[in-house]
């Protein structure tokens, strides 16, 4: 799927033995795995994490190898990341999702200076230097409002498929105002908006604007330097991307591999650090 994308940071030399590395990103909602061979992305797999993050890591890893007909012995190194990174005990190393998302984004476009990653329970802003290293980062604090789980709760309250959230919000003519920072209270705010007869598209657009406001405020702490890339599962929601652009006044590139970007970064790091 990513043929032609070369790894600009692996530092591999011609004639060096081909490295086959795996990145496993066990997030709070989904577990992702990718295979990188000689600086090229060979394939990826995404499953739901479920209650046992160790099992999820094993399952997504085994599933991906089976799909690509790769034997375990052929794998040189494995790096785990994500909130469940330390439970992937068969990995050679655990690296935080901050470093992995930065590496993954830099791999796709070395010009990127800011990464906004919104996952299941974390939102992060990562400032990169010209070498693709993390210069600074900010993360959401104790509250998970404005993350993937927040959007899931809202989708359930609105009885709208989460995948349709983005497109629906683009049809909004007047976004509703969602002011509560708390996911549970925001949900009741949404329910009262429904009761008042507010349209779904305006409510969804309002939800996206509240996410945008929260994430931009956080990202501004590290400085939103362009070009900006968005990664993480929520990047697939065009409504959130537009809301972030509107709020920050910057254009945002969406990673083609948004959801597996952290796993890509992990696999690349596995190839570099021996």
């Amino acid at each position: 799927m990513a043929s032609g994308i070369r790894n600009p940071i692996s530092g591999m030399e011609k004639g060096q033995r081909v490295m086959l590395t795996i990145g496993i990103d066990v997030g709070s909602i989904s577990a992702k795995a990718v295979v990188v061979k000689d600086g090229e992305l060979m394939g990826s797999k995404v499953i739901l994490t479920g209650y046992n993050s160790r099992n999820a890591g094993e399952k997504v890893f085994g599933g991906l190898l089976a799909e690509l007909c790769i034997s375990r012995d052929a794998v040189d190194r494995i790096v785990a990341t994500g909130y469940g990174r330390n439970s992937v005990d068969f990995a050679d190393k655990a690296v935080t999702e901050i470093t992995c998302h930065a590496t993954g984004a830099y791999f796709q476009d070395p010009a990127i200076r800011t990464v906004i990653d919104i996952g299941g329970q974390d939102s992060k802003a990562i400032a990169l230097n010209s070498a693709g290293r993390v210069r600074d980062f900010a993360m959401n604090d104790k509250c998970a409002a404005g993350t993937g789980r927040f959007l899931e709760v809202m989708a359930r309250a609105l009885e709208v498929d989460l995948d349709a959230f983005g497109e629906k919000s683009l049809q909004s003519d007047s976004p509703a105002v969602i002011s509560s920072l708390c996911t549970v209270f925001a949900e009741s705010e949404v329910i009262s908006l429904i009761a008042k007869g507010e349209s779904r598209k305006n409510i969804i657009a309002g939800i996206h604007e509240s996410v945008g406001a929260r994430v931009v405020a956080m990202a501004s702490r590290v400085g939103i330097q362009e070009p900006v890339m968005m990664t993480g599962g929520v990047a697939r929601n065009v409504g959130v991307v537009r809301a972030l652009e509107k709020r920050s006044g910057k254009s945002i590139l969406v990673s083609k591999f948004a959801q597996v970007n952290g796993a890509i970064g992990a696999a690349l790091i596995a190839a570099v650090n021996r």
Partner: protein
Amino acid sequence: MTITEKPVDTEKEKRKIKSVKKMKEIMTHYYIDAKTADQTGKKVAWITSGGPVEPLIAMDVIPVYPENHGAMIGASKMGADLCENAEAMGYSGDLCTYALADIACSTVNGGPIGGLPRPDMLVCCNNICGTVLKWYEVQARYYNAPLFILDTPFCHTEFSEEARQYVRRQLDEYLAFLETNCGRKFDQDHLAEVGRLSMEGQRLWQAVLDTAINKPAPMSAFDAFFHLALIVTLRGTKTAIDYYTELLDEMKTRVAGGISAVPNEKYRLLWDNLPVWYRTRWLSDKFASHSACLVADTYTSAWCGSLKYMDETDFLNSMAEGYSRIYLNIGTDKMADMVLGMIDKYDVHGLVMHSNRSCKPYSLGQYDIQRIVQEKRGLPTLIIEADMIDARSFSESQVETRIDAFMEVLKA
């Protein structure tokens, strides 16, 4: 049948600070004295951590620190439970958790030492925060004990002559308050002697902290959090001087023998704000796993930070400035200057700031200080969201990811 003994980890034993035992003994005696004061005829005064304690020592009153007690509650992981008790009494969960835990503890005689001894009087100095005013009023009403409030104006950059006179006159009122409540004349000569001991103790404490300038550092901020107790509670006594003299000797011996707080110290960090009392071990192990040592902190150095404003030969008069210009009572720019000074002095690689849910005066301005440090020293900084004693405000995986990512930045 063979008995297998657990092998002694000699490496770990070597790193243990021997003075810890002595310190525990002193603190145990101190609390026994305080808790048996009603039998020995001594008076007990509750006092805020930044309050002028020397006049109490001079009058042979036992000073008791609800904040030190708060730290013990936190370290014993009893904070959240006591805070919930206070919330059930009607206090807002947004208040300082030292205040909440202390107020709740009084009603149940709970906590790690079964509550503090009843105060005969309370002394509240607002140089550390505004919460102490209402907190001490609540406790003065609860115990029906007299309360003295020392109001120290906020010193953004300078200390005006008007401020000096304002605080100085209150010190006279403070001495009069003690005369009334102790039923005897205040001995100014004794205060001068206590003041001298206090300053000597502070200089020794500073000297102990300064041993961490050495590479590797013989002690970490986590050690300082522990050994701090005496300069807070027994400042102005010979006990504190003797103890810190011993501790300083031990640190010098460690430096000479190359014994470090953290094995293979590679990264030196500066800590800002109060400790996360219920997680000091976890945080210490976490940083040590990255070969990082928190070599200094803005918190424990606050108990010797205003020495430059104190005059041993004119202690009473110099107390006005010394007790006003403490770390939490100065402007953000001045705080940033002190942070920059410590960064240079201890030669650190990064700054770790605890954004403490409880402590507004300490946590307000941290983002500005962070920016100033990044601009002027280009150092990586990390902000951890937590609370000093309320474990409900701590998310392990969130904090762990931040620390790991911060260390990855430092190592890159």
